[in-house]
């Protein structure tokens, strides 16, 4: 199942939803790990009080990047997945009705 999700094409409903889920889960994980505290880099304050503590600064940057991706990007992925699903349903309906019409035409011809 996870493998199927992971290998789903990016521009498909499942592909977009799986990326959205992955980003959200990662964000929740970092949040629970307390990385929010590292975001003080945004005001120029070293999270640990040590200006040369690069790992803490990288943690802050990753958390900030992921936060804005989740807030601004993930809902777009979810909405786009919904739109793609609707479009696919529309196409399926269209092709079904086309084949139905084809059957009716054929049927009518044969009847005639």
């Amino acid at each position, binding site marked *: 199942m996870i493998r199927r999700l992971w290998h789903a094409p990016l521009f498909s409903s499942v592909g977009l939803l799986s990326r959205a889920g992955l980003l959200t889960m990662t964000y929740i994980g970092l949040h629970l790990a307390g990385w929010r505290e590292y975001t003080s880099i945004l005001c120029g304050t070293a999270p640990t009080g040590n200006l040369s503590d690069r790992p803490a600064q990288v943690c802050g940057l990753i958390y900030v990047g992921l936060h804005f991706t989740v807030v601004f990007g993930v809902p777009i992925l979810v909405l*786009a997945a919904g739109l793609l699903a609707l479009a696919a349903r529309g196409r399926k309906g269209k092709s079904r009705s086309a084949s139905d019409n084809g059957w009716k035409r054929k049927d009518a011809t044969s009847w005639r």
Partner: protein
Amino acid sequence: MNRWQRTAWGLAALGIAAVIWLPCVHFFFHQDLDAHFRTTGIPPRADELLARHLRLWLDPQARAVEIQKMRASNAEWDFMGRTFLVLSLANMSLRAPGRAAVYLPVMDTIIAETLRLEREQGMYVFLMNYARRGHFVGKPARSLFVDGAIALMLAARRLVTEREDYRPLLHERIAAMIAAMRQSKMLLAESYPDECWMFDQATALAVLRAADALDGTDHRAFVREWLATARQKLLHPATGLLCASSSTAGIVGDGPEGSTIWWVAHALQVVDRSFAADQYARAKHELAREVCGFGFAREWPTSWQGAVDIDSGPVIPGLQLSTGSSGLAFVGASAFGDREYLQKLLAAVYVGGFPVRRRGELKFCASNQVGDAVLLYAMTLGPLWQEIERRAAQ
């Protein structure tokens, strides 16, 4: 459907989704404005912000950690954090007189601790390191940044409840500030060697008005003279905004800056109300911006190119969003009752300030103690300035 068609459909769906989502995001970060800013009583969020500050002042270990974090970047922040906290406590004491008994000892502790540090280590303890590398033009060497803020803390404390031993301390500072300002033809006192920051000049003028209100002195002629000189020499021609810094000779160093002008406009409210309102309106026009319902502030107007520094904080390219200017924009917007801008700034601070509410305390992780103290001050300001005007009118 082939790969190209799938990609085209996917990109189109993402585009449509973005057009739907981006204008709506701010609704999810919309805050109850009255819980943060109100003209009477204490807003609940201010109470929560204060709870953390009080804990820090009651717990020396936690305070040391917090202060060390700030001092590693900028010693000024430690000092400004104290100033804004004392000013907030004064406003909160005037908003809720029943709480003054709790807040006054905290104010006194902060003031005493600040005076002790200055006495033991000199003014440089609250200045950035480069202050030691130059020579102050004025003699004796004093920093208006330190004198002005300490005087304002003393005056704020006395405006809540008189404390006689603070009276001579306040007047010593005022005498020193005026002496320093009088040494310059432009009436500008130094904050750093041959650097006169408008932030500190405006603070000094507000202190003079507070002293007049408290003790019946009269500095109106000096204030008028200062304003006339500043209007003539220190306004940025393209914007009409006061420049952020200049030399004692009046040579402009930094043009208009958001991290300065929001506070300056507020401080000038007790000095010259119409000039203050004019400065706020110009600052709003030049610096306030909004994207998708989120408000923020630029550090510089489009007509001035400055360099990112410790005052501006990180600046996001493209948007020109400055964290320093955006934080202080709360003070300007609150002082001038600009609730529409406050609402948008609040949405922005809740999306990008990384708030944490825990055990009745609120803090913004993307900020630090001084940032939160500025926000607390913005939430509570008003009564102190009203008290100055009330007493001055008597």
